């Protein structure tokens, strides 16, 4: 009996030991699976980082179709693997969300694309693409059917990762926001339509991406050709203009009979006009190819503004307009004085040009570490439609038949203000004049350099 019992115990004991061993093994496997998940995540992050560096190594690989394709394929594969490993939940605030946020943060932090996630809720990604090609380029690309070209690498990557999961990115909104000079883009993670057109989102997208890259390349080529033309033309114009300017000033000093003296005055005004036009064209090219660097020094904005008004007066360009300078006695900041002079002079030129001879006021004040320069005219004002385009190059608030000029003044002004880390805004109603408000930080912020020299266009 006791022998039998011992035998049973022995058998059971083996069973128990076996079970224990299995539990241990399962626990081991579970632990290793968990560890694998962790490793996978680490690996994903590492690859992401590598990919970003890879992209960076190619100086903005957005312009290199081959590297974009490689990048997109590799990122897509990694994301897909990651999703298969950890699962995917659209509305919960689980790991993938963090991963996506980290992804975009990575991209932004490393300057791969200037993308900013505004919010991420219930699978709706709201983002902004900043400082990109500008409205014209954007509109043309959209017209050609390349709606998401700007977000192409990131979007294509997301598409590639989502498609095998039966999900896709549905575009809700993709608009150029003029106020912020960025493209605002909303995209929702949605279920793939089971009966929709061919479920080949991935393929469709990569085709789209290529077409878009091609368009983009053509676009930047055309822009380069235009910029080259303007640059060469301005250069060629500058030489005869200089000779005219110098000879004329010599002539003005001579003792001329009355008729000839009047003639030199006409010449003086016309030379001045030509000079402004050529300078504008040159500046625009310089700004667009990012060649202007700020030479900051201590500048008194009040004194600078007074100087501009005085020189307008001296050059008899006020056309009977009274300009009143008000506000603080002195507002000192660290700015590029020559460039700020341009801003003030462009704003005043406009105020005179569109001010219908009525008085103009300029207020210069400082508050909370920021300077304000407010130029107010009481002239023809600006229509709401024109307001939207006002700061774009070659645009103007009114018809070219009535008012000439190249339409570059405000564009240049805004670029310069932004290079200083400031803003320029306008309030106006037709017939009620316009108020331009320039706000400038008194001292530069650390990341100003990044803002200045990151033209996605060009080289």
């Amino acid at each position, binding site marked *: 009996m006791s022998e039998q019992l011992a035998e049973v115990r022995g058998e059971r004991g083996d069973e128990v030991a076996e079970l224990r061993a299995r539990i241990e093994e399962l626990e081991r496997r579970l632990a290793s699976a968990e560890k694998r998940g962790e490793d996978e995540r680490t690996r994903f992050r590492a690859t992401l980082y590598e990919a970003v560096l890879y992209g960076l190594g190619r100086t903005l690989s957005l312009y290199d179709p081959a590297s974009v394709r490689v990048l997109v394929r590799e990122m897509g594969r990694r994301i897909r693997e990651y999703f298969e490993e950890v699962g995917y939940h659209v509305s919960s605030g689980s790991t993938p969300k963090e991963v996506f946020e980290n992804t975009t943060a990575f991209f932004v932090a490393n300057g791969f694309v200037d993308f900013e996630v505004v919010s991420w809720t219930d699978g709706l990604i709201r983002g902004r693409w900043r400082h990109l090609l500008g409205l014209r380029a954007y509109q043309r690309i959209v017209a050609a059917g390349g709606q998401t070209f700007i977000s192409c690498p990131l979007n294509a990557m997301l598409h590639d990762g989502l498609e095998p999961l039966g999900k896709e990115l549905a575009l809700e909104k993709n608009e150029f926001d003029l106020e912020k000079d960025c493209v605002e883009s909303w995209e929702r993670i949605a279920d793939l339509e089971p009966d929709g057109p061919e479920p080949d989102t991935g393929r469709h997208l990569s085709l789209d991406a290529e077409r878009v890259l091609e368009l983009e390349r053509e676009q930047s080529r055309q822009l380069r050709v235009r910029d080259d033309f303007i640059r060469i033309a301005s250069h060629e114009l500058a*030489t005869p203009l200089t*000779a005219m300017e*110098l000879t004329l000033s010599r002539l003005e000093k001579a003792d001329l009979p009355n008729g000839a003296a009047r003639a030199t005055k006409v010449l003086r005004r016309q030379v001045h006009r030509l000079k402004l036009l050529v300078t504008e064209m*040159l500046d625009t090219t310089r700004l667009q190819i990012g060649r202007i660097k700020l030479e900051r020094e201590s500048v008194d904005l009040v004194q600078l503004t007074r100087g501009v008004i005085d020189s307008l007066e001296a050059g008899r360009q006020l056309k009977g307009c009274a300009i009143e300078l008000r506000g603080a006695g002195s507002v000192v900041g660290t700015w590029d004085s020559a460039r700020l002079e341009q801003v003030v002079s462009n704003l005043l030129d406009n105020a005179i040009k569109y001010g219908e001879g009525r008085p103009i006021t300029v207020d210069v004040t400082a508050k909370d570490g920021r300077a304000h320069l407010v130029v107010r005219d009481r002239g023809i004002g600006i229509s709401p439609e024109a307001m939207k385009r006002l700061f774009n190059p070659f645009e103007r608030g009114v018809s070219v038949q009535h008012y000439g000029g190249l339409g570059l003044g405000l564009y240049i002004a805004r670029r310069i203000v932004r290079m200083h880390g400031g803003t320029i805004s306008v309030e106006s109603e037709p017939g009620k004049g316009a108020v331009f408000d320039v706000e400038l930080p008194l001292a530069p912020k650390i990341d100003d350099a990044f803002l200045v020299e990151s033209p996605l266009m060009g080289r």
Partner: protein
Amino acid sequence: MSVVLLVDDDIDIREAEELVLEDAGYRVVSAANGEEALAALENGLRPAVILLDLMMPVMNGWELRERMLRDATIASIPVVVVTGDTMAAQRAKSLAAAGYLAKPFATEELLAIVARVTAADS
């Protein structure tokens, strides 16, 4: 009386600059390209400043500057780069120039920079 050496292939620019500078009391020597300028310097001309255009036939401004810097007797003559291209400031820096004039410039700018450079030199 300071001597200014003008190097520019555009005859009207030379003429105009000459008028302005002579009015202001400078003695002006002109050269239509780098080679003429170099010949004058090698013949012992020691201007207080050289106003140097960059794009010129025969010997351009860069070449002249390079030749000058290799010759210790003329290397230290201050040069003001005169150019209508978009990179006047950078050009001046890369050529170790004393200053630059970006076309189109006005009489006052021309006189101011010549006065500054010749004053610093003497």
